[in-house]
């Protein structure tokens, strides 16, 4: 088991998603440190992929910017090594199966373990295909994080029973991106998850405002925000860390009042 559980100890977790190398790795390091200072509980680091099929336009564009800047998996391991000199909170990677597969699952997860990555989120690796990487994850003590979607229905209990790290509950249909309203009956999904596991559950996809974060965290254990942060980075570029700090602070403050 990794350190991910610590992100949920005694409070609701705020989890920012940041695409590594957008606009460059130095800025990414500054953004991660700003998010940590602002009170983030866990950092989700995106390794860019050329064809991210689960992402909306905002994160697709971030992937392209990062790859155009010459970002590679090896350079990202270097970033994590640097961040781990002072960043103590859990960090997980979010990427696509081919990035891990082409690197070699054993080498990839060995490097995760050496540099200090706690978990791995692969949106194109459903329950049935976990066998691809689970042995390497367990060998190096990296949690393979499961996603549950509004369409999961009878699959929820099966996924929850084998979940590790935390459960990533997808708030709504579609790809990542800001939404004005989230209408899925998430309470009943969370209820089934709770009946099947003690692993914590955070909600992501479509969350951008403090009100949405508070609402999502109140029915689960935390909120994950990606596109809204990527938009700030897209707008401010290398000046983004200060702006991300303000944004993450406002989101963490919003969760402060929510009962753990």
């Amino acid at each position, binding site marked *: 088991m990794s350190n991910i559980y610590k992100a949920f100890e005694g409070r609701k977790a705020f989890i920012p998603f940041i695409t590594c190398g957008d606009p460059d790795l130095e800025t990414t390091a500054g953004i991660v440190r700003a998010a940590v200072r602002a009170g983030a509980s866990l950092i989700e680091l995106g390794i860019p*992929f*050329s*064809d991210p*099929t*689960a992402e*909306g*336009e905002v994160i*697709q564009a971030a992937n392209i910017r990062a*790859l155009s800047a010459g970002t*590679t*998996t*090896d350079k990202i391991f270097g970033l994590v090594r640097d961040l781990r000199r002072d960043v103590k909170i859990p960090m997980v990677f979010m990427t*696509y*199966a*081919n*990035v*891990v*597969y*082409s*690197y070699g699952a054993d080498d990839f997860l060995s490097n995760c373990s050496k540099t200090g990555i706690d978990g791995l989120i692969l*949106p*194109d*690796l*459903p*329950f*049935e*295909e*976990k*066998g*691809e990487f*689970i*042995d390497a994850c367990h060998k190096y003590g990296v949690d393979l994080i*499961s*996603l*549950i*979607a*509004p*369409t*999961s*229905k009878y*699959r929820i209990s099966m*996924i929850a029973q084998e979940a590790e790290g935390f459960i990533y509950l*997808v708030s709504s*249909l*579609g*790809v990542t991106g800001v939404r004005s309203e989230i209408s899925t009956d998430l309470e009943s999904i969370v209820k089934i998850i709770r009946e099947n596991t003690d692993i914590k559950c955070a909600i992501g996809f479509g969350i951008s405002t403090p009100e949405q974060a508070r609402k999502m965290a109140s029915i689960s254990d935390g909120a994950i925000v990606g596109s809204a942060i990527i938009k700030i980075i897209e707008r401010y570029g290398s000046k983004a860390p200060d702006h991300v700090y303000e944004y993450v602070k406002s989101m963490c403050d919003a969760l402060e009042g929510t009962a753990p």
Partner: protein
Amino acid sequence: MKDNRSRGRFGQHGGQYIPETLMNAVIELEKAYDHYRKDPEFNRELTELFNNYAGRPSRLYFAKKMTEDLGGAKIYLKREDLNHTGAHKINNVLGQALLAKKMGKTRLIAETGAGQHGVATATAAALFGMECVVFMGEEDTKRQALNVYRMKLLGADVIPVKSGTATLKDAVSEAMREWTRRIDDTHYCLGSVMGPHPFPTIVRDFQAVISREIKSQMLEAEGRLPDVVLACVGGGSNAIGTFYDFINDDSVRLIGCEAAGRGVDTYETAATIATGKLGIFHGMKSYFCQDEYGQIAPVYSISAGLDYPGIGPEHAYLHDIGRAEYVPVTDEEAVCAFEYLAKTEGIIPAIESAHAVAHAIKIAPKMKPDELMVITISGRGDKDCAAIARYRGEDINE
């Protein structure tokens, strides 16, 4: 960890590498398909559509002039170009649209490269009274403007995809994204033997009519099986259709012709078996053109329909076990074959199919006159005339 959880494997290839949001949709599709493929009424309706709407069986034509000109194998052409809508794509689309209708779906979405699959899907949607949205790379909407108009005429919405290389792979990605947005009433009518299980199996089964017909037509014409069958391969649907009924006939050589673009030693190629490596993309494990970090390569071919960085998992498997051969064919070779078939037999093949013709031109002269060759002409070439004219330096208006 139990590996047997993974479904739809062809050796090490295949599987279901898709977002959780889509898992129940593909599971329901598999269940429905398992039910209807054994249902006599479904099969009766599909055969009726094949024969009376699509114009099947398609002809197996003895290409006498080509045979004499090349001076080797006796060459037959499987005329999928004569199907309604002008390509083999209609076989799969009629099957999937009928299945979708039985499942209660009212909306079809599809990706398209050259536009043939998009046109076929728009056609079936018009016939069945279903809504239709086709995703097409913006680059391809330019090189296949005629097909864009045909789809619109048939009542479909055509969405130009601007992301990535704005070609077929990006159209697939966008169709997958659209499916995660709207699942309940929507069937993703995937156009090739690719993507997550059960698509490679479903599409293969609906295309297998090609090899079943070749077999019986050849037995009737020559009293024996062919010695070699050739087809072009992008994702590989007309090729698997051409191969499938011959896989257990060891005497029949199966040759898939990939698009080498400007050559397999350049970056401007789409020859997956020649230049790709094992990976996971678009829902399947198979071979993909990619860089050392697994980033999918921006592939290139003059043919919008073969301009795809991967290959269907069953082809990857047939390659692994050595049952089928996959050979690269360049733009220049394909264009020469396009012109050759037009002048020699009076048949203008799709530029995709011309890749198979090109390889046949290379190997037929080395074969004996009593050896039998079948080339699948997967589509007709009207759509390509303007692009080939441009390739030859002649600017014509479509």
